[in-house]
């Protein structure tokens, strides 16, 4: 039952990523050229509702569908890892024109070449794992 709910959420996510064109390389390029409000509208409207909803959940101690308390784990404090990791991610986001969610969406949409991006992303994760202890965080 729970597994099915994850599957449906994933399907819903894949459809939204495709139909909103957030999975389109062109939309990412256009966003970084500041030539359309589209992506900024997508992100900011999601954020406004996200901030409001999370405040509501916290204030009212709303429970999950399964009656469990909802925990929000704060991100570890730091600066270097977020700015450096963020810049590296941003370079890849703009070059490949997709972030991890849309990579899966595009596989489903039938773009074989995106598998090369996925392979690169898995390798990149592996390289990070190997170097983790040597990198400043």
């Amino acid at each position: 039952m729970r597994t099915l709910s994850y599957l449906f959420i994933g399907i819903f996510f894949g459809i939204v990523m495709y139909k909103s064109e957030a999975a389109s390389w062109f939309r990412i390029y256009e966003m970084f050229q500041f030539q359309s409000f589209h992506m900024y509208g997508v992100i900011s409207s999601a954020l406004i509702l996200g901030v409001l909803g999370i405040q509501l959940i916290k204030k009212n101690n709303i429970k999950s569908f399964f009656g469990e308390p909802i925990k929000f784990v704060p991100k570890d404090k730091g600066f270097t890892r977020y700015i450096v990791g963020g810049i590296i991610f941003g370079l890849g986001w703009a070059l490949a024109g997709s972030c991890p969610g849309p990579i899966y969406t595009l596989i489903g949409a039938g773009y074989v070449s995106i598998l090369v991006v996925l392979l690169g992303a898995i390798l990149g994760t592996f390289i990070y794992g190997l170097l983790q202890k040597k990198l400043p965080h």
Partner: protein
Amino acid sequence: MGYLQYNKFQIMNWIFEPWPWYLAGPLIALIMFLLIFVGKQFGMSSNLRTMCTMCGADNAADFFSFDWKAQRWNLVVVIGAIIGGYIGAHFLSNDSAVTINPETVATLQELGFTSAGNAYLPDELFSIDALLNIKTLSILLIGGLLIGFGARYAGGCTSGHAISGLSNLQVPSLIAVIGFFIGGLFMIHVLFPLIF
């Protein structure tokens, strides 16, 4: 009757068109909340670490020594996202062309992207023919490497930081998102003219 049919037709048409930001953004927030309400969190890049561990990477680095089975739910989300991409592209769209700003089209055409304005992804990078080109192949592979490395170094990607983290007012996520934009802007404005 005629009115109802007309209305139905309009709604159907609207689904097949690209979805506007004011529909897509709230739906993304809804997806995040659905995950929160089933006791999980929205983040699409941690799967990459799970896949490494499943391939035996835990023998190479401690970073991959974790109970990957506890992350199976997120792999199910991934399978869903693949199915959703298939449904979106094959059943919910008439035309895959992405109507970007004509100015953006002009800039891209100057860079050699003649498919700009007529496709979902540029043929110049994503067509099967382009895969046989060593330069294109390297671009896709390096793009992926940067995404995977950067996401794990920063502890999250667009979904984990820009949506989930910022929604929870996390300062680290704000720093990461600023980084995403510094990197993206540098790539498009400084490196693209050198690469393409």
